Structures are given as C-alpha cells and as structure tokens.
C-alpha cells in the first residue's frame, strides 16, 4: 500500500519539477521514486495494512506484480533520456503521467472490489490517452490518442454494463462475495451475461482479438517509448486484473466462459501472426506481435493450478523485458532515420553491434527460442495449458511457428547486410549501452536459471 502512496507522491513531485530546466529533472525524480518504491515493496512491515476496507488488498501476488511492473517502468525511464531528447519542453508531464498510470496498475493488482477495478482501469487508461498523443505535431500520434480514447471509452462502457449486471444479480461489488454468489447460483443467466460483457471490456484493454483493432494504430502512432509502456506495463496490469477477476470472482462459472476465451485465443494467434507477417513496418509488426502475445498469455486460463499466478508473472516479465530490448533498438533507429520500415534497420549490426544483438535476442525470446526467458515462460504456459486444452497449445505452437518468420525478417535486416545504411557518426549513449547489456543478461539468465525470477520477485510459500 505504501508503494502506491510513494509512486503517487513521486508523480506529483515530478509534475512540479516541470517548472525548472524544461522538465528534465522529472526523469531523475521518477527514477528515485521508483527505486524507493521497489525497495519498500520488499519490506512487508512497511505496508501499513494489507487490506483496506474490502476495497484493496496487498497480498503476496500483488507484491509480485507490483515489483515486476516497477522494474519494467524503471527500465523504460532509463530509456527515456534518449527517447525524449527531442522533446524540448513538457517532459515532466510525460514522466508524471506514466507514474500515474503505474498507480492505476498497482490498484489493478490489488483490487478486491469491482468499483476498485473500474477505478484502476480508468487511472491506468486516462494518462495513456494523453500520452498516446504526446507527439503533438505528429498527425499519427493525434490519431492514436483519439482512437484510443474513443475505443477505450466504449470498452469502459461495456465494463460498467457488466459490473451493473453482476451487481444486479449478486447485490455486491466485493470480489469474494461475488465468488460466493457465483458458486451458489452458477446458472444465473443475467450474471453470465455480465461476465461476458466484462470479458469483452478487459479483452479490449489487453488487446485480445477480436477486440484488438485499435492496438496496431495506437501502438504505431504513439511515441515509441509510450508504446513500450503500453506493451509492457499495461499488458502486465491488464492481464493480472483479468486473471484475478476470472479466477477469484467467476471461477464458479468456468464452464460458461472458458470457451469464449478459447475462441479469442485461436482468433488472436492466427490473425495477429498472419497480420504480423504482412507488415513492412517494424513498429507495426511489433504491435501485431504484442497482440499475438496476448493470445499466448490468455492460455493461462486453461489448466489453472496453484502455480498459474507465478507462470503468468514470469511470462509477463519475460515479455516486458523482450519488449524493452527490441524497442530500444527501434527507438534508436527511429531517431536516426525518422522511420521504422524494415529497410531502416539494414546493417545495424555493423554500426551498433550491441544494440542489434539486444534487439535480436529480445525477438528470439519473444519467439520462444531456448536459453531465453521467453522460452521458459512459454514452456511453463504451454505445459500448464496442455493439461486441459491440448488443442489450444497446438494452435499456439502453430502461432509461434508463423511468428518466427517475421521476427527473422527484422533480424536478417539488422545482421545480414554488409554495408551499413547508417551514415551518422552519432554513438549510442552510455546509459543505453548499460541498459542493453542488462536486458541481454536478464533475458539469458532467466532462460538458463528460471528460478532466479522466484528468488528476485516472488515470496512463494
């Protein structure tokens, strides 16, 4: 709980530092605040209370997801110095808004009441609507912002419809009371309708097909750093909120909804991967890859066991790391070339071997090549889902098979060209290089010793 307060205060302070020095201080304030929050999240005695009036609970799982999202945000902040170096002013808002969004994430990790769920989603989304339009002079960024806002507002509407129906039948917003009600009357049609509406709304937030239509445009139009934030932190919070909702409140009507998610998974994996194959722009390709990952992650709803939360956290963290790795590369290229087509990446390995390597390893991790975190995560997910939905695992395997083709295209562009297409003498900054090494080490280390993750983040009983 104190983590939430710290991050909120940091965001407020960061916002006020905008007065000085074009707001560049905000980044350092943000990093300091996040480090403090990360430290505090390891100290259970500083949590003040683990439960707030049946609205919010801060248990072990909440702490686990809080830690991984704080680490992810930290890495994104480290990238920020380079990524936002073109923004002459108003930098402080960007960092402050990201921190506010992170507050929303943490609310989502610990909500215990459907109202808190709604609040969390809104606190997460509203800063993002603004952030998506952060490149004020870029038409695509404006488009992204507006599109995200309009579609997001629709999804929120669905969420509220769903919550209303559930409140109407069960008479409570409390997650555990809903659970008790669902277990008692699983055949309640109105309730099932509410469940379906909520699934639709949250599927929108995590970009699960067929509710993914907004995501390629928004991901491509937003400033790349914000895209990274959306692909990683927002996905982490969206999915854990989804997971909490389905496994705590609605597990009693599992038979009613697992087929729906199964169909979503199939559509997502085929559609997103096929679309990814057709892209010529790396950023848009990564947007589709992000959608396809939502499909893999949704396998978490099959064969649920007591390790599922851990598997989910591991996958999300592995995916967030990979996203950061590949987006690092992309941001650098975008900065130099002002575009992100595959051709823009030609010969990157010649110019910046480290940056090309971090991009390549991240993409191999996304594709699930062994000795990367992504493989271990995918393996855990597949072996869980195999126990109950073997067919979906087959679909996921086919999906991965398709996906490797488009990841390879980018790797080939970076590595297989003798002459570099980069004419500038601009070198990568030191922070950036350190970050690249960190991401490579983290991805490989988690791929070789998956238990490291548990040692760092999870306090499993």
């Amino acid at each position, binding site marked *: 709980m104190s983590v939430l307060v710290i991050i909120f205060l940091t965001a407020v302070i960061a916002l006020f530092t905008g007065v000085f020095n074009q707001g560049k201080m905000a980044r350092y304030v943000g990093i300091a605040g996040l480090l403090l929050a990360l430290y505090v999240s390891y100290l259970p005695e500083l949590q003040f209370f683990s439960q707030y009036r049946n609205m919010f609970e801060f248990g072990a799982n909440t702490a686990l997801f809080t830690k991984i999202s704080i680490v992810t945000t930290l890495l994104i902040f480290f990238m920020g110095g380079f990524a936002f170096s073109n923004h002459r002013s108003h930098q402080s808002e960007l960092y402050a808004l990201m921190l506010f969004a992170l507050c929303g994430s943490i609310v989502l990790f610990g909500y215990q009441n459907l109202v808190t769920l709604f609040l969390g989603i809104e606190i997460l989304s509203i800063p993002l609507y603004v952030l998506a339009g952060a490149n004020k002079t870029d038409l695509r960024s404006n488009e992204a912002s507006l599109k995200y806002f309009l579609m997001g507002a629709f999804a929120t509407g669905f969420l509220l419809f769903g919550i209303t129906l559930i409140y109407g039948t069960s008479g409570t917003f409390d997650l555990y009371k809903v659970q008790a009600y669902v277990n008692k009357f699983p055949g309640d049609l109105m309730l099932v309708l509410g469940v379906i509406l909520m699934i639709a709304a949250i599927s929108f937030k995590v970009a699960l097909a067929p509710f993914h239509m907004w995501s390629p445009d928004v991901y491509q139009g937003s400033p790349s750093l914000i895209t990274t934030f959306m692909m990683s932190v927002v996905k982490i919070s969206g999915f854990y909120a989804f997971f909490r909702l389905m496994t705590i409140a609605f597990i009693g009507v599992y038979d009613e909804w697992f087929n729906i998610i199964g169909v979503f998974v199939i559509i997502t994996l085929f559609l997103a991967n096929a679309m990814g194959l057709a892209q010529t722009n790396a950023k848009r390709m990564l947007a589709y890859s992000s959608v396809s990952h939502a499909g893999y992650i949704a396998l978490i709803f099959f064969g649920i066991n007591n390790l599922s939360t851990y598997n989910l956290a591991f996958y999300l963290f592995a995916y967030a790391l990979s996203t950061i790795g590949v987006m690092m590369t992309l941001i650098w290229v975008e900065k130099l070339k002002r575009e992100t087509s595959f051709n823009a990446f030609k010969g990157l390995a010649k110019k910046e071997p480290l940056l090309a390597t971090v991009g390549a390893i991240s993409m191999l991790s996304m594709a699930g090549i062994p000795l990367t975190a992504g493989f271990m995560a995918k*393996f855990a997910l*597949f072996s869980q889902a195999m126990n109950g939905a073997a067919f979906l*695992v087959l679909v996921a395997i086919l999906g991965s098979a398709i996906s490797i083709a488009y990841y390879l*295209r980018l790797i080939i562009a970076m590595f297989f060209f003798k002459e570099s297409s980069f004419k500038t003498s601009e070198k990568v900054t030191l922070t950036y290089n350190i970050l690249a090494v960190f991401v490579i080490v983290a991805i490989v280390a988690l791929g070789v010793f*998956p238990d490291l993750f548990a040692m760092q983040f999870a306090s499993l009983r």
Partner: protein
Amino acid sequence: MSYHLLALLLIPLVGSGLLFALKGKSAKHLAFGISLIQMLVTFCILYGFDAKPTVDSVLQHEINYPWSQFLKSSLHFGIDGMSMLLLLLTNVLVPLIIYSSFNETVNYRNSFYALILLMQFGLVGVFTALDGLLFYIFWEVTLIPIWLIAGLWGQENKRFHFTTKFFVYTFVGSLFMLGAFVYIYNYAPSFAVTDMYNSGLNLTQQTIVFWFIFFAFAVKLPVFPFHTWQPDTYTYSPTQGTMLLSGIMLKMAVYGLLRYLLPITPDAIAGISGSIVLMLAIIGVLHGALIALIQNDIKRIFAYSSFSHVGLIVAGIFASALLVMNGKFTIEGGEGALVQAFAHGFNVVGLFYCADILYKRFKTRDIRQMGGLAKVAPKFAVLFLIVVLGSVGLPLTNGFIGEFILIKSIFDFNVLAAIISGVTIILAAAYLFRSYGKTMFTEGDDRILASAKDLSNVEFTVMASIAGIVILFGVFPQPVIELVSSSLKFIYQSMVS
C-alpha cells in the same frame, strides 16, 4: 559428477565467449586450439570408457543437478556408448572443419569461429543430455549458430531466401517436438528419459506424439517429403556450414530417433506409423539417388546423396524396431544406423570439402564445366577417390559395413524394401563416379588447368585425415559396433518392456 563431461560442455562455450569478446587476427588458431583440447578430452573419456553401462544402470561421467523447483526437469548429462560415438564424431570433425578454413579469408573471423564453437556446445549437449527438456534446449541451441553461419557467410544473392526457409522449416519441426514433449510431461513423472519411456500413453496418444516428434527429426534428417530445405541450404551455405550441417547436425536426429522416439512410442511404431515411416525413408533413398543422377551442381549432387544415404539409416532403424515389436529381437538396424552415421559424417564432410576444392580451382560448381584435374592434381585425385569409394560403400571402406548391416536388417523385415534400398548402392556408384569422372578425367579447360595447383598443405592435411579415417574404420569396424551395442540393446529392450 564428472569433470570430464563438464569440461566437454564448457570448453566450447567458454571458447566461443572468448572469441566473441577478443579482437585480433589469430582467431582461427585460438578456435583450432580450443577444439583440439576438446578432442583430447574426448579421447581421455574414450580411453577409460566401458561400453556396457546404459541409461538405466549406473552411467559413466554422469552430471545430475536439480534445475528449477518449478520444473520436473534436472540438469542431467551422461555418456553411454551411443553418445560416446557421436561425441567422438563431433569432436573430431570440428577441429577438422575449423582447420579446413585456414586458407580462407573470412569476414568477421572472430564471430565465425565463435559460432562454430557455440554450435559444438549445442551438439555436445544434445548428445549427452538425459532429460527431454534439456535435449530440446540444446537441439534449438544448435540452430541459431548454424543459421547465422549460413546467413552471414553464405552465397550472397540467395541467402535471404534459403536461410529463412531453413530456419522456419526446422523451427516449426522443433516446436512440434516441444508440443509432444510437453504432452508427455503431463503423463510422465518427470522429463528424465527413463521416465519419459514409461509415460504409459495409449496407442492413440502415442501415435500423435510419434508424428509430432518424428516431424522434428524428419525435417532435420531430412526424410522425404520434408527435405525441400536441404539442397538449397547445403548448396548456398559456406563450406564449413555445410560440413557442420551434413556431417554432424543431422546425426542429432539419428540420435534423437534412437534415444527418444523408439522407446517413447513403441506401440505407435508397431501400429501403422512405423511402416509408413519405413516406406517414406525408402522412397527418400530412391528419390534422392535418382535426383542426384541428373544434377550438375556438384554441391547439389552431394546434398542429394546425403539425403539418400540418410534415408537408408532411417529405414534400418525402423526395420529393426518393427522386427522387435513383432517379437524378433534384433539390434542390427540400430548398429548399422550408428556405424553408417559415423561413417557418413566423415564421408560427407570429405565430399563437401572436395566440392569446395573443386570450386576454388574451377570457379564454378557445374560439373559440366570442370574436367581433367587428375592430371595436374594427382594427390587430390587419389584422396577424392578414397572419399568417393567410402561414400559408395566399397568393401574395406567405412561406408561398406554400415550399409551392409542396414540392408541386411531391412532384408530381415521385408525383401522388397531391401531390394529397392540395395539398388541405391548401384545408383550411388553411378552418380558419384559420374561426378568424379567428369571433374577429374574428361577434357578440361586448358587455361584453368594450367594455373590449377594440387592440394595445398591445409587441404592435404584435412583430406588425408579423412581418407585415413575412411580406410581405418573400413578395415576395423568392430570397435564402433562394440561401443554402441549395449546401449542399443537397452533402447530396443525398452520398446518391448
């Protein structure tokens, strides 16, 4: 805990890391030195090796550590006869392959040799892992370096197409194997090989698992009709890449068939699946040989010849497996397969090296434009002939004994199949002697021949060592058979028990 095996795993990995990190001109010497140390360690292990113990009994050079508390998988490595043979093949061939590149000017030489050593690390892992997940991981680890080698140093204008095709094809195959392994994992107590053998799947489940795993191996081997990536990849890869691919990498699949597929899915093999595979393999034998007859690109001829020979290996393995399941216990097919795999490793490396030597002399791979080299390069003519004879399977060369046992085991199962596969020896003689004759004896371009030289020192060393091995194991094949027989007995025994 065996320090020998640990060294075997770590030397190439550390060496590869060193090479990536260091800068300088002596990358090839460093890489060669590292691979020589690796070879010496292998010989040390071989020296004190007792071929009897197998996976179920006490293993030699065992490493077993728990890995993750969330995975029922452990870092379990060990060597039995089968592993030993393939380790020997790997660790003798890699120094040869590295040495063979000494005369060449390679761009980014550090990365090139680092990737070869990384590949060696993966191969050693595959041949020693005694845990399904570990096997899969190493299996994939080999893919990245060879893909980069093929892509970075392959033929310029073709490489984007063929490398992608190669990678996607093999990766899809491997993913299916992963799916099958995960499926077995749900039933078996753990990923340990012996647990996987006793997973207790019924016939339907076994059949699904069989085809999923077989797909991965079939792509790698390759078996008809999954071979379409192979000719392009072999042809356009750099010579060292082709050597690694054909000499060692496809043996991973032979090893995988024996170690995993046969004992895990015996009922499926006894059902219709085994016979289908046998049929596919024999179609491949004939198909490859016939295509090789009409090719003019010398690397392509050797690629199809490799495809054809591998078909015979698979046919032998499955013929014996089917016999065992029908109640007649025999391990001949497996023995033949391993002896032939060992022999084929050296022969095919020799052949592709000859192709490279020819390409350097004639600046073309088209055999119609070559000719008359025997006059100016007698040393080469002799050594090339020995390698060709080994591939054809002439008695007293290493190709003979393997092929003989393989055809005998197929004969025991089905006479017709044996006749068809026997024809390939004739066809092999036809296409190999055709290419040999065209390149060495016919009238050649005098201007090229005038400037063509005989083998350089490096070339001579490599060719002579391969020719020596061809004859050595042709005359004394027995040690190889003795090395593998007890582990094969265990494998085929686990099918019926």
